[in-house]
């Protein structure tokens, strides 16, 4: 066959001809498709330069970026301008995983993560966030040469996403055709696929759904579109939502069932990852992203300004909260347009907030080995600083705040069990009937606040503090400098900008008043593994599923928790430094979900003028032994 010049075809005229390919395998141009348009994001200029050079050598088109926000705006401006994104994990302005989420959701592009960090937990995080690959630095040419496979794979999976109903035949046909293409050299595939796509795109841009249509113009899931999607899913119920029905409900011209199907797939993965589950409140899962009709809040992740607005619209977020959040710079008036920039800013403001709070080293050591009495004092002090907003349940406020985060913390209704975040369950909470963190919160704020109210807020501040603060030593002057080991190791491993563990067991809506001592909270905080275990006990199957690989600890059991609590009575909170060191894996998973929330909360709290409580406690660092792990 002659070499064709396909729109996006191979740079060298290797074309899609198998004959030609067989002849010229040696030539680099024929080894893999060229002209893949790659966006590289890394704050390290050295690495950027090297990657660019390598990618150019692979005959890819490269654009480099040293900031995630710039990358996102580039991607948003050029809707179909890139085929694949390579991003560093550890970046100052935005966590690489957050960028990954955004790109995956909005542009549906394959994203490759890379880092000098090769710890399993971080790699796993990449996987759970949907990265198509994870490269360890130093990145070598061989690794880059084959990134085109991810592009092809993604396109193929989009084309042949069959869900239930409808065009099974067409799907079958499609698959057969693609399989046929597989027989040729891989570069042939690429060019065939791209050629088809190109032609069909030209013909059928934005037309009615045509199930037999092979082409898949990339759909950009804008804010409104996603809102409609989520609303439709919620209406149908996450478990029961099928693409066909969702499509009907959405009633968006030009949107195909396949588009919806692949988006639904991603959405489900996303939900699963958030660990949103709670058998009793399965329905709440629907509320992730943007709160839907349900009063309970599902895992809220990747919520941005537009999500907040959606929340307002759906009545879940009082406009008052939104205004407050906006005032705090945590939310922006939404632009229901595609420009995601306000969202970015929102994200970034969260991040910067977080960074600030990190650096200010709040001295909330309450949850670390603090004798109950002292803690209570401290807590009370803190509590008093927490304003209670009138006319708005704290939960709603928290939800609002959460909305701004990308975190998976679900927001259960008052009296409801907290959803998901089972991973993050605090021991004490788990112990109670309510599978919430209630114990923690109530413990924390024993006095004048209702269950959810400031306890949640307090928790937030604690949470934020927790990971950040080091282990208090009585009168230790170096206290302010301390940061939990967890945080540094976490940082190392996770490469995120979050401090330490973002409090996995952070449940703002615990409704339980109980007499758990604060140290119990500390224990819970400290032993993520323990929390994991306990949360397992409470989690639904999906949670376990999600968490299983994270856990390297004992299987869930109530008993250990009880024991812990029993011990808690007499013992001060153990520093978890050692635990942390050991359980960073667990911590990581926690972290990924809650880091943003925490930041958001702390930002919110700061806005409220809540100053971190400075505490110095006596602290017995090495008596963590009795905590079963």
């Amino acid at each position, binding site marked *: 066959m002659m070499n064709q010049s396909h729109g996006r075809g191979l740079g060298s005229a290797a074309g899609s001809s198998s004959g030609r390919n067989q002849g010229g395998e040696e030539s680099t141009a024929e080894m893999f498709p060229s002209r893949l348009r790659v966006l590289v994001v890394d*704050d*390290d*200029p*050295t*690495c950027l*330069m*090297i990657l660019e*050079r*390598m990618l150019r*050598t692979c005959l890819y088109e490269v654009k480099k970026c040293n900031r995630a926000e710039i990358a996102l705006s580039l991607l948003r401006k050029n809707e179909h301008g890139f085929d694949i994104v390579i991003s*560093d994990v*550890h970046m100052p302005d935005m966590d690489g995983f957050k960028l990954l989420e955004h790109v995956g959701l909005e542009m549906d592009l394959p994203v490759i993560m890379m*880092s*000098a*960090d090769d710890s399993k937990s971080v790699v796993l995080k990449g996987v759970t966030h949907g990265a198509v690959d994870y490269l360890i*630095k*130093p*990145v*070598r*040419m061989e690794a880059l040469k084959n990134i085109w496979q991810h592009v092809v794979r993604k396109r193929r999976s989009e084309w042949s996403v069959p869900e239930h109903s409808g065009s099974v035949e067409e799907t079958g046909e499609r698959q057969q055709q693609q399989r046929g293409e597989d027989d040729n050299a891989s570069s042939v595939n690429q060019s065939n696929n791209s050629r088809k796509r190109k032609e069909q795109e030209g013909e059928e841009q934005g037309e009615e759904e045509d199930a037999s249509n092979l082409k898949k113009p990339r759909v950009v899931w804008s804010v409104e579109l996603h809102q409609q999607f989520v609303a439709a899913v919620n209406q149908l119920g996450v478990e029961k939502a099928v693409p066909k029905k969702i499509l009907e409900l959405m009633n968006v011209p030009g949107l195909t069932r396949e588009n919806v199907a692949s988006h639904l797939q991603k959405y489900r993965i996303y939900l699963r990852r958030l660990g949103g589950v709670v058998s009793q409140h399965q329905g709440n899962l629907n509320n992730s992203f943007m709160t839907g009709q349900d009063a309970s809040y599902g895992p809220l992740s990747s919520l941005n300004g537009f999500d907040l607005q959606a929340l307002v619209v759906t009545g879940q977020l009082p406009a008052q909260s939104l205004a407050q959040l906006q005032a705090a710079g945590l939310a922006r008036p939404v632009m229901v347009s595609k420009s995601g920039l306000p969202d970015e800013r929102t994200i970034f403001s969260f991040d910067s907030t977080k960074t600030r709070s*990190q*650096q200010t*080293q709040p001295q909330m050591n309450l949850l670390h080995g603090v004798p109950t009495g002292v803690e209570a004092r401290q807590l009370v002090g803190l509590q008093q600083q927490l304003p209670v907003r009138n006319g708005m349940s704290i939960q709603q406020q928290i939800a609002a705040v959460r909305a701004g985060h990308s975190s998976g913390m679900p927001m259960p209704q008052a009296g409801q069990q907290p959803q998901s975040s089972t991973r993050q369950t605090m021991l004490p909470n788990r112990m109670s009937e309510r599978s919430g963190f209630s114990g923690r919160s109530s413990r924390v704020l024993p006095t004048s606040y209702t269950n959810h109210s400031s306890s949640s807020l307090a928790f937030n501040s604690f949470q934020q503090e927790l990971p950040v603060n*080091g*282990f208090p*030593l009585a009168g*230790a*002057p*170096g206290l*302010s*400098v*301390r*940061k*939990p*080991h*967890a*945080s*540094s*190791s976490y*940082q*190392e491993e996770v*490469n995120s*900008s979050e*401090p*330490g563990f973002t409090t996995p067991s952070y449940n703002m809506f615990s409704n339980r008043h109980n007499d758990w001592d604060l140290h119990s909270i500390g224990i819970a905080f400290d032993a993520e593994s323990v929390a994991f275990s306990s949360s397992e006990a409470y989690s639904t199957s999906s949670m376990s599923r999600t968490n299983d690989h994270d856990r390297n600890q004992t299987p869930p059991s109530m008993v250990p928790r009880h024991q812990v609590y029993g011990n808690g009575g007499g013992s001060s909170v153990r*520093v978890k*430094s*050692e635990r*942390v*060191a050991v359980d960073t894996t667990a911590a990581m998973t926690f972290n990924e979900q809650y880091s943003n929330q925490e930041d958001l909360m702390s930002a919110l709290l700061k806005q409220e003028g809540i100053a971190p409580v400075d505490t110095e406690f006596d*602290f017995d*660092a*090495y008596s963590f032994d009795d905590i079963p792990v």
Partner: protein
Amino acid sequence: MQRQVALIKQSLFDQGYLDEQFVELEELQDDANPNFVEEVATLYFKDSARLISNIEQALERGSFDFNRLDNYMHQFKGSSTSIGASKVKTECTMFREYCRVGNAEVFSLFRTCDECRCLRTFKQLKKEHATLRKKLEQYFQASK
């Protein structure tokens, strides 16, 4: 001159200042990009000088912010790895390890030890970094 170039390069590898990553970079150099490696090295030293200065400031503050230090070191390690600066990378790793340990350290006395180790490691790191810079400058100079 050629021989000198070869000698310098060989010593850099033998003494462990550079590793195979550097070779990878050299392979990226071609007629269209004849000075690629030198450009990368220049960029690296410029960026790492900034990092070193940040770290020094952080250390001078007197309080050991292990997290922040670890952050800087992570970046430093990343770029050092990318260019093949092997010894520097090792020092970064050690420094981060001391940060990690020090961060977890509860007893201030031991923590001070960790801090000391960090400082010492940092000193060593700067030394390796400076040596590498000098040698690479010689190398590039001789290659011209």
